[in-house]
Structure formats: structure tokens, C-alpha cells
């Protein structure tokens, strides 16, 4: 068995007396699309926030490419190759779509204060290359015509895709998506699926997606883990998870589980 790209081991998160994640273990294999589903309040977003360093784990460890990343700052984790999107979109609203993407490219096109103050040829070259890469990424997610629109003025579906382009600009090995399909129409979800599958095929990016929209998760995931009340209650292929009585109980209540099981 190959080594996991991301390995979450017995991770717990507590806020005061509240246990948001209870000893969760989860792996993302290289080149795979792993999904985490669960009802509202199951701890899905907490899981994402603890992986990206926004929350501190109260216990357990998180390894990325074999190295501990728990306890590191969010930007350090991003620089190691984990990128994310936000559920309610956290775009830089007043900045253009292009500038939003260029923020993530910042460290790949770095120059010093003197270069910036002088704004000579060297400066223009670096800025132009950064712009070009940002344009490519926008085109990749279908935002080629929206480069100079302020992010806040884009329609919601486009904001979602801009979030993905911005995350890709950090040049990640693992992309974390926080409910990327919420609020999207069926056609938009299909388009999103194609983008994600292309990313894996062409850029060798692994994906961890959190969602409760079944069509997206079922269609593209290799494996699905199910969270409920902060614990992992099931994991397996989409088909296996769909048939698990525990999962049906979590989503539909105990009675439904019995009805299906009998």
C-alpha cells in the first residue's frame, strides 16, 4: 500500500465543553478524490479548519506527505501544498478576479521593496508573468471574461469557481473543498465535476471534498467517509456507504434505517 498523502490520526477538537471532533482518523490517498459527508453540525467544517491550521487540535496528529503539520500556522500549511476554498466564499470582494488569484501567486512571483518602489523593467516582467498565470487559471475554471470584475460583483456560481482558481494558484498537491456545490444548479454541478476530474487527471491534484449534496459526491468520489456528531461512523466506496444502515440512520433517523434494513 502506498503512503497516504494526508493522514489524520485520532484528531479531536474541543471548544470549551463542546466536542466538535472526536478522535477522527482519515486518509487521503495520492491521486484520489476523498469525500466527507454528514448532516449539519457533524464536524465537517471543523475537520477542514483543523487540517488548514485555523483551529488547533486538542489531540491527535495530522501528517501531510509524511510530515506533521498540526500546530503550524495556516499560511505555512498552504505553502506545503494544501489549498482550500470556503463554504460561504471568502473572496477579497473589492479586488478584481485577477487580483484575487494573484494573491495566491504572490510567493512564486516575489520581488523586493526596492524593485516595487522603482517599478522598472524587472518589475514589469515579473508582474506580467504573474498576470499570465492568473489568467490561465481563470480560464481553466471558465472565468476568462471576468478578469477585471470585482469579486463581490460576480454571480454566486462564478464566485465559487473563483474560489477554486484562487486555491489552485497556491499550486497545491491537495485541494480541500468546503461544500463546493451548495447553492449551485444541476448544470453547474456537472461543470464543477468536470473541472475537478480534469484537475486530478492533468495536474495530479488530490481532492478532499466536504459536502452533503449527494450527486457531486457520488459521481466523482473514490471513497466517502461519514461524520456524525464529530465521529466517523462509516467509510467506504460510494456504493457501500449508500447502503450502510448507520449512514441512513444518521441522515433519515433510526426508523428509516430499520425500514431499509428489514
Amino acid at each position: 500500500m502506498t503512503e497516504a498523502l494526508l493522514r489524520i490520526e485520532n484528531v479531536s477538537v474541543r471548544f470549551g465543553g463542546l466536542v466538535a471532533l472526536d478522535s477522527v482518523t482519515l486518509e487521503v490517498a495520492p491521486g484520489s478524490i476523498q469525500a466527507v459527508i454528514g448532516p449539519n453540525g457533524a464536524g465537517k467544517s471543523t475537520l477542514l479548519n483543523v487540517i488548514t491550521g485555523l483551529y488547533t487540535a486538542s489531540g491527535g496528529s495530522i501528517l501531510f506527505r509524511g510530515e506533521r503539520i498540526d500546530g503550524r500556522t495556516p499560511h505555512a500549511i498552504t505553502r506545503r501544498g494544501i489549498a482550500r476554498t470556503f463554504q460561504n466564499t471568502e473572496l477579497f470582494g473589492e479586488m478584481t478576479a485577477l487580483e484575487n488569484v494573484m494573491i495566491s501567486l504572490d510567493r512564486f512571483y516575489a520581488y523586493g521593496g526596492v524593485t516595487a518602489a522603482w517599478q522598472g523593467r524587472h518589475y514589469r516582467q515579473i508582474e506580467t508573468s504573474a498576470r499570465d498565470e492568473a489568467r490561465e487559471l481563470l480560464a481553466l475554471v471558465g472565468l476568462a471574461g471576468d478578469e477585471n470584475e470585482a469579486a463581490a460583483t460576480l454571480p454566486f456560481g462564478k464566485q465559487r469557481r473563483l474560489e477554486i482558481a484562487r486555491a489552485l494558484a497556491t499550486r497545491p498537491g491537495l485541494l480541500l473543498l468546503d461544500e463546493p456545490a451548495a447553492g449551485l444548479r444541476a448544470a453547474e454541478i456537472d461543470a464543477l465535476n468536470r473541472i475537478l476530474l480534469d484537475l486530478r487527471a492533468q495536474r495530479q491534484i488530490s481532492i478532499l471534498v466536504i459536502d452533503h449534496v449527494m450527486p457531486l459526491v457520488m459521481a466523482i468520489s473514490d471513497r466517502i467517509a461519514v461524520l456524525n456528531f464529530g465521529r466517523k461512523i462509516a467509510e467506504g466506496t460510494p456504493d457501500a456507504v449508500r447502503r450502510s444502515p448507520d449512514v441512513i440512520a444518521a441522515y433519515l433517523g433510526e426508523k428509516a434505517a430499520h425500514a431499509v434494513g428489514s
Partner: protein
Amino acid sequence: MLAQVLVSSVTAGAVYALIALGFVLIHKGTGVVHFGYGDQVTFGAYLVLIAQMAVTGLPFWPAVFIALVVSALLGALIYGGFMWPLRNASLLAKIIASLALGTVLREFVRAFMGPNAWPFPFLLSQTAVPVGGVLVVPANLAIVGVSLGILAILFLLFEKTLFGKAIMAACDNRIGASLIGVRVSHVFLLIWVVASVLATVAGVLVAPLLTLSPDMGLIGIKGFTAAVLGGFNSLPGAVLGGILLGILEALVGTYISSALKDMISYGILIAVILIRPQGLLGGLLVKKV
């Protein structure tokens, strides 16, 4: 000696507590930290003088009553004229607006009442009475009593009544509150009116003790320190923070150096903000994404 220092310091502490209560009330009730509150306290005291100048021969108590009414209107004006239009503005804009409001009030009294100090009558006798070996001043006791009384009223209002819970609901979740029938704008308006009246009560009590000049409002920073020390969301914390700050200042002033007194309270402010931003009695804050 120590007993006397402590008893005297409680007065200063109660002054801080009174102002801190206003801060906490506005913050707990509307989510705004009002940087101009200290100036509103000063303005309240000036309102009494202005009423007496406007109506010749007006006795003190009716003047206080007029000041209270005018400050209630001022509270409504602050909410309707500034805080309501800015309800969706950035936090930065709200902070600057509240600083600006305080500056307007301060410069208003400087422009129309002059930069110099005004005498202000004590409500009770300022002759010290010996009680159990220490000297107690009735005028000072009044401040302590009023602070505790206001704390008791506000505490009961917030923690024990349905109305108080409605206020908290409105503050925590505007949409949710409006769904269950709470008119958020009415609640906020009421908070601003009550807090503004409270500022004038504080001003009338404090003005004779401090010097009533346009810059008396700088006492607001001490009120802030008290509120932060106690926990910005906790009414009992505001009083506890005020009394603690008063005692601490008195001890430093008596035993170390009076020059260091103020520096130490500002140092405490920074230290508490850095080390325990939720204060002594405040709850934990979790950032949501």
C-alpha cells in the same frame, strides 16, 4: 493607613465602574464599542449647567431632570443619525464614527462653554464621617451606591426578564430575532437611550469629584480599562473591574509613585487585552468561518 487607602479607592473604582457599565451595556446590547462614551459623560454634566444658564433661576434638581431628558434625545439621535445608517458599515467605520461623536461633544462644550473648569455641586455632604476607624464621605458613598444600584437593575433586566433575553437575541442574531418578532431597531434605540441617560447620571455624580472641563471625558479610558479588565460582555465584570482598577491605582499611587499610577492602568489595559482578552468574567470567543 491601608484600610483608609482601600476605602477611598473604592470611590474612584465606583466611578470607573459606572462608566464601564455604560460601555458594557452598549456593547452587550448593540455590538458597538462606543469610544465617545467618556465624552458623553462629560456632556451630561454640562447639560445641567446649560439648562441652568438657559432658564435663569432654575434650581439644581429640575436642571438635572432636563439634562436627563435631553440626553435621552441625544441617545436617540446618535442611534438614528449615525449608528443606524452605519449598521452595515465596516467595524473600522463604526469605531471611527464613535470616536468622532465623542470628539464632536467634547469640542462642542469647548466651543460654547469654554476650555476652563466649571464648579459643580455635590449631591451629598462632602464632610468625612468616621465609621469604624476610617473616614467615609457621604458624597462618595452615593457614587458607590448608585453604581451598585444600576448594576442590579441592568443585571436583572438582562439576565432575568424576557425583554433582556430578547435584547440578547437581537444582538446575537438579527435575522433570527426578527423572525421571532423582536424589532431589532427598537431594541437598539432603547439601548442607546438608556446608555445615554446613564452617561448623564454618571456625569452628574462624577463632575464634582473630578474637575468638570471639556477633557474630563478622558476618564473614559479608565472606564474602558475597567470594562476590559472585567470582561467586555459582563455587567458584574464591569463593576468588579472598576473597583479592582480603583484599588490598584490607589495602592500604586500610595506605595510606589503617583506619577506611575496612570501609566500602570494603561499598562494593565494592554496586558489584559493581550493575555486575557475575554477579561476576568467574560466568556470564551470562538471565531467562525
